[in-house]
């Protein structure tokens, strides 16, 4: 089994929800999520952000869905860290 440990995402989002609400919503996807958000560029209605998500096992589809639910769109996955683990017999 391959577990996703860390992803760095390039995201375009509206100004609202703000950075705090945005990261909180992503962190609520799992119980041990660590989320870091950096604003890269600010426009009139949108901002480009870099989101770093770390966990023992990231549920990436759930993270992507949360980002979409908040009106943001995932532009690219810039970094990924995964780890394989032996299957439990």
């Amino acid at each position, binding site marked *: 089994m391959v577990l996703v440990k860390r992803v760095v995402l390039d995201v375009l989002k509206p100004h609202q*929800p703000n950075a705090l609400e945005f990261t909180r919503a992503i962190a609520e996807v799992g119980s041990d999520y660590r989320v870091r958000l950096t604003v890269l560029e600010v426009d009139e209605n949108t901002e480009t952000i870099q989101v770093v998500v770390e966990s023992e096992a990231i549920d990436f589809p759930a993270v992507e869905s949360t980002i979409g639910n*908040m*009106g943001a769109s995932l532009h690219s996955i810039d970094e990924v860290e995964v780890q394989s683990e032996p299957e439990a017999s």
Partner: protein
Amino acid sequence: MKLLEQAKFLLNITRTNDILRRYLVVNGFDGALTMLGLIIGFLVSQADDLHIIINACLGAAIALGMSGVSSAYISELAERRRALGKLEAAMISDLKDTAHGEAARGVPLLIALVNGLAPLVISLLILIPLLLSNVGVILPLPPLYAAIVVALILIFFLGVFLGRISGVSWLRSGIQTMLVAVITAALIYLFAGN
């Protein structure tokens, strides 16, 4: 609780908290002054049929509530749709199934409810002395005077609420709004009393 949190979140992302607060005070004040005006009108007319007075006031309260709900819903729906369209253009994507889409549908409903319920609830509170007297409860004051006292107290508290929001003295703000009510009463006595 979850519904309340969701409502707070939607109000937050649309930055409509202050609109909700403003509607609550403005229409609440409308309701209180309308009831005050009606009751003073009945008082100067020396109307003594409490049943007619209650029905007239209830009619006005319901009309204020309906007017508040419908006018706010129509105007806020248009505003939210416009804001969503602008955001969709900026994001170059369809946001109907996102929190922003949900807010565009839900926030107008929430604002409309507050805008309609504020005058209705305040009016009903002012009518309590009349309703109590109508079912035979003995009040320390004649029912119309008791209703005026309730109206003045509620108007004072609306002023206190405004004072707390703006960070000025709550007492000063409360007295200011009470002064508006007193001027209204004086004008009614001046024009309707003769």
